[in-house]
């Protein structure tokens, strides 16, 4: 079974003192899995500094950190939930700070290839009930069931 979640990179109910610390926790897992190169974290941080990826949803804020394909070996999505929010800047603004409690880190190898999954993911962000479930989930098995429920397990 090959989809954009098959590397099983997910961290639940983590604690981080800052956006950088949170990004590092998850980026390290992405690099360790071989999905991305050693330069991935630096790429993520640079992108986040220049063009923020925070998104303010109806009942919570999430971030979709990602970076240039040159840092990536294969397309995957990594997930992390945080027990206490960390401050991100909202996408489309230069300075609006929002409290993020979940990250969907995108390791994207090419444009277009993952469009259907990205479109679905944006729909999921607007589904309050499903987002509450993502926030509550605490193990990989249940997490993957949510991915299936959200129909995000499109072959990649």
């Amino acid at each position, binding site marked *: 079974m090959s989809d954009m979640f098959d590397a099983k990179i997910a961290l639940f109910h983590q604690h981080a003192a800052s956006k950088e610390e949170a990004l590092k926790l998850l980026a390290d897992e992405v690099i360790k899995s071989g999905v991305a190169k050693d330069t991935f974290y630096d790429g993520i941080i640079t992108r986040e500094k*220049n063009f923020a990826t925070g998104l303010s949803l109806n009942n919570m804020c999430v971030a*979709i950190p990602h970076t240039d*394909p040159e840092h990536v070996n294969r397309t995957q999505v990594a997930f992390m939930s945080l027990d206490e929010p960390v401050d991100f800047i909202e996408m489309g603004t230069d300075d609006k700070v929002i409290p993020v409690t979940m990250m969907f880190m995108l390791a994207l190898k090419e444009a277009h290839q993952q469009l259907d999954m990205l479109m679905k993911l944006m729909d999921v962000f607007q589904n309050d009930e499903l987002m509450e479930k993502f926030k509550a989930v605490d193990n990989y098995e249940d997490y993957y069931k949510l991915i299936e429920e959200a129909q995000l397990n499109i072959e990649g």
Partner: protein
Amino acid sequence: MAIKKILLCCGTGVATSTVANRKLCEELDRRGFKGQYMVSQCKAVEVPSKSPNFDICVSTIANSYKCECPMVIATGLILNRGTQEIFDKICEILEFK
């Protein structure tokens, strides 16, 4: 009528601009402008060099770089917020009536 050229940009040119691209094309086609426009995706850093050749730049990120054509911030397209206003503004700039 000359084909209008739309430059769609985000930070990396692979994620949010791809989503915005699909939504923009669907709406422009729905409004009856199919075949009257073309879209190129790019990274934000490419905007200063590419924008002189375009009629409009639609960006999903904040405008913090030099753009030589009219620009619309379209982050709302990602989460379906204020989309009609964004599309109206784009159509106005492109003189799509």
